[in-house]
């Protein structure tokens, strides 16, 4: 009886430790803090996300570039396209700009300055948290943004880009190994 209880207590302790460890891992993985580094994993896909009710399901890289550069600023129904960007120089932003806009961080910064001086408006709002981005996109059908693919939860819809889903090995929006 004593041995059985000791064994149970040890087993329970070990299980509890594993559970605690798992809980901690899950908690850390879902923390609301900055998670830009999440996209810095080599080759990890970046999903382009919209509200599930947004009728758009697929987009070409050219269209996506036009949207993100604010050269195209209306959805087909006439509603404004609202972009939520990552903070400049965050790994997700740098990887996305390189893959979609074909621009370095310096060129992107210059692009938005030039556009402002030409009177074409201000750059999109930037935030530094996938949680925040997902939360905003999940609340508004007019928003478009992007997050590391594994951060795209069920509250948002990941677009098919160039005919490929983020899980596809050939999906085009990934960090380059520069």
């Amino acid at each position, binding site marked *: 009886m004593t041995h059985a209880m000791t064994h149970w207590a040890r087993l329970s302790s070990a299980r*509890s430790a594993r559970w605690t460890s798992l809980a901690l891992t899950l*908690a850390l993985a879902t923390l609301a803090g900055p998670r830009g580094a999440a996209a810095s994993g080599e080759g990890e896909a970046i999903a382009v996300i919209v509200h599930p009710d947004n009728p758009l399901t697929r987009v070409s890289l050219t269209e996506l570039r036009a949207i993100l550069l604010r050269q195209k*600023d209306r959805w087909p129904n006439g509603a404004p396209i609202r972009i939520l960007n990552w903070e400049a120089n965050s790994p997700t932003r740098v990887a996305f700009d390189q893959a979609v806009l074909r621009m370095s961080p310096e060129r992107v*910064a210059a692009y938005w*300055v030039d556009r402002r001086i030409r009177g074409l408006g*201000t750059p999109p709002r930037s935030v530094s948290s996938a949680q925040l981005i997902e939360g905003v996109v999940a609340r508004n059908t007019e928003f478009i943004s992007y997050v590391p693919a594994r951060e795209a939860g069920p509250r948002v819809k990941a677009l098919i880009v160039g005919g490929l889903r983020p899980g596809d090995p050939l999906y085009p929006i990934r960090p380059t190994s520069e």
Partner: protein
Amino acid sequence: MRTAARLAGLWLALAGLPAARAQAPAGPPASAPPASSAVKGAEAGTLEQLEREVRALRERQRADDRRRDESEQRLALAEETAASLSDQLEAQRTFAIYGFFDVSFQKWWVPENVLAGDLLDQEPSFIFGNLNLYFDFKPLQDWRMLAEVRFLLNPVGDTRAYEVARLGERYRQVDVTTNDAGSFGESFDYGSIEIERAWLSWGRLEWLQLTVGLLLTPYGIWNIDHGSPTRILATAPPVYVLQLFPERQLGLELHGSTFVHDVRLEYALTLSNGRGDASNLKDPDWNKALGGRVVAGSTGDWTWQAGLSWYWGDYSEIKRVFVPPRDIVKETTVRYREAAVGADFSLEVGPFGLQTEVLANWRKYDDDHRPPWVPRGSESFIPADQDVLAQAFPGQFRPDLGSWAAIAILSYELPLRHLRLRPFVSATWLDIDDNISFDNLIDLTYGLNWRVSGAVVVKVAQEWVHWPNKRGEPILLFGSEDVHRFSTQIAVAF
């Protein structure tokens, strides 16, 4: 919860063990064997170990609870922030102030034996260029208002200490010295403000939007790039100084954009009072000016843009004459009709950049309202009766004018990591068929741009200007001597 339940069960089990053991001697069963000291020692050791494990588990549970609480709080905060941000962005009522600033240092080298030598100061000097502020307001969804003002050190007219106006212009000196209300005996000179543009735009459709107000004329590259941080050259090349298109107009613009496959098409149609400061106040004639622009372009590995622009309008100067006994007659003093066309092309491929622009303007005066001849290359808008140089050459009138100009700027970004150095060279050709100040102009500029960041640009340039004299006649303003200029500029967007 499961951990807590397990802990509770374990604790109850442990708590029950010594109690049971303590009760055992009170009622020993007849068949129970006597407990040995070795067994008692082993039980005590096991008990202590279990108690330690329980304490450790309790500690872990507390830490786990703390972390879970923190995590939940942060998640809740993130959700709350997302909701708040979403509401803010959805409201779309935004007001932003931004702008740009530049300061330059210049040195001219001009031969003394030409008239221009007296106009272009050869002393090296710092130049206060632009301090422009933008007020960008979105009062409602689909509406946007933009005002841009430029703050100048120049007072209204010219400074008292430095009485240089453009050739032929009459000085309009104004004493702008005023007392500083905040301190006794101290005074300052106030500068003036120029409204660069101010308009209100509405559009729910991407392909059709309407803008009304004071607009920068949509033509070419230079006029659209507009600000020193965006432009490659530190100083305006002669192509733009001539204003073959008016720089800005007061009126309305219908514009929009669409995509044809991967090519973006933009178009604009303008209706305005026309060229000139007077037209920016109130149109002095019945004829409105029309203009337009069509642009095609693409952004990507090859970023290119090709544009065509045109402008057609009348220019008038009027004065009011009192006719006794009680009549006032509006009399036209100058009037011409003009047409301008322009084509531009820009290309960026990797580190290479190319900007080209060709502009042409034809101007035909009404014979009844042809102004006196003025030895000036560019059109200025001095009322004829105030034009001192025109009065110095009586009996001669301005000819009809046909001018064209072209500029090409080639640049290359050096392959330096995180150091955006871009050497450039530009070439300008100008042909003004006015037979007055000069016939042709060639301007070659080479220099280096350093885009320190997106917002900060440093420019250094050396310019050489040459006037080929195709008629072989002496040219009043510049003769046939070359002019050189060194300029450096720092421009900041904020």
